[in-house]
């Protein structure tokens, strides 16, 4: 089985936010929730870079470790998913996640949070693959249809890569060798305790 990862080539990302929009549309993500976002560092200054970020589907995922009801599971493709039926909306996964991936709909009393929502790597949830229930709770299950996450698939500059970690690392490595520069695989060290050496 593949070890699915994301890799954002910051030297190609032009901060068009198309990945953000595609994700929202594909999964009908409610207003106020962003499974993916683009952060621009050193905005307007020399050396500015933009990085598209969502859940990185970490190795030994921090969110899963801290969840008080253990509602996370890792698929055979190493995608980190969770059950909205089991989540109690405590917000702990957001405190632990290095990438700010978990999102919570605002419901009920106080500042209290509803069931957590995050990037599923377009792989749905624990319900039957591509069922309406799964779609309503987690969005589309493209992986079950043999497709990769939509954000990466439609990225116009192909800055955002999704797929087996070894393959996308190889693509990135070849790019860097060819063009002679690359600011690295952002977040990899934190998420996978690994980096792409060129």
């Amino acid at each position, binding site marked *: 089985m593949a070890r699915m990862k994301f890799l954002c080539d910051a030297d190609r990302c032009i901060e068009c936010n198309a990945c953000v929009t595609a994700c929202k549309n594909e999964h009908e993500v409610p207003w*106020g929730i962003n499974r993916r*976002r683009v952060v621009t560092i050193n905005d307007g200054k020399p050396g500015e870079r933009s990085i598209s970020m969502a859940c990185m589907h970490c190795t030994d995922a921090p969110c899963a470790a801290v969840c*008080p*009801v*253990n509602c996370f599971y890792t698929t055979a493709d190493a995608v980190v998913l969770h059950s909205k039926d089991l989540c109690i909306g*405590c917000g702990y996964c957001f405190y632990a996640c*290095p990438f*700010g991936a978990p999102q919570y709909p605002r419901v009920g009393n106080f500042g209290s949070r509803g069931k957590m929502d995050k990037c599923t790597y377009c792989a749905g949830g624990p319900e039957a693959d591509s069922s309406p229930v799964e779609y309503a709770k987690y969005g589309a299950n493209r992986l079950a249809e043999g497709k990769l996450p939509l954000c990466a698939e439609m990225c116009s500059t192909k800055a955002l890569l999704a797929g087996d970690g070894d393959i996308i690392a190889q693509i990135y490595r070849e790019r860097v060798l060819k063009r002679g520069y690359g*600011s690295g695989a952002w977040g990899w060290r*934190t998420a996978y305790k690994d980096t792409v050496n060129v």
Partner: protein
Amino acid sequence: MRMPILLWRRCLAVVALLGLVLLSGPLAAQQPTSVNPTAASVQEQQLLQQLQAVQGRISIPDQRANVLIQPAGQDWRAFHQVTLPWIGAIAILGMLAVLVLFYMSRGKIMIDSGPSKQRIVRFNSFERFVHWLTAGSFMLLALTGLNITFGKFLLLPVIGPEAFTALSQAGKYVHNYLSFPFMLGLVFMFLVWVVHNLPNAVDVAWLKAGGGLLKKGVHPPAKKFNAGQKLIFWAVIVGGVGLSVTGLILLFPFQGTSIADMQLSQMIHGLISLVLIAVMIAHIYIGSVGMEGAFDAMGSGEVDLNWAKEHHSLWVQEEMKKTGGAGARAQAAE
């Protein structure tokens, strides 16, 4: 006359353009074939080392999402998964072990002079109401809180994920709502009892005598509250205020607080609560199975006169003076 001037101008422009092209030729050839934009760009490792986080600008409404990477989450995870459960387990199990040992060596602390026929009012109904308001909500807050810390290790494997989620969801609501009666009880408790809990010279003597806890027949004098009870009182007040402040921050997440504030609040909340639970276990022990006649003070509000004379001698004298000896009444009158 006009045509030649225009022609002349056009020729000039062509010459100028040609010159430009000729001049720029060698200039372009001097440029390096490849530039390295990364040399001047922001670097992840450098940002992480310098700022402990990678942060930028974002164009979605949720401005908190501008943090790209916050490695502090890893420390929080280590605290929540390792440090906190260990501290909690050691504090609570350690306290239970100490109490079991204490019970085995000292046994139940009896009224040395035996029960009398007389009783004296120790806590009026408002004091008891305040005590149980705080104690009742504290116990439910403690149980639902412990479920968050230890439930997945202890309860989840036993009752299964669905039942455990249902329980934890209910527990979350209980914890959220009962925090308010607890805070109210805390305020009342402070107002009603603070005057009796200011430390004084009597406490020093009481503590030197070990509170008479370890030896039979030893009863250092005490007023309404002895030094041990005063320590419990201040632990509840200080710990309770700490829990309330951090708890309210947790209850209203990101209302003027950053993720670092949230993580810190959660850590302090967890630490105080587990230590306070251990302290309260000792308090519950001595107020119930550990000492004959102690529970009545918060039960009916009336205690045995001999019990009162042994444990709160100075308070009994004060009460007797106030009421001219009528403070105590015969048990038969009940």
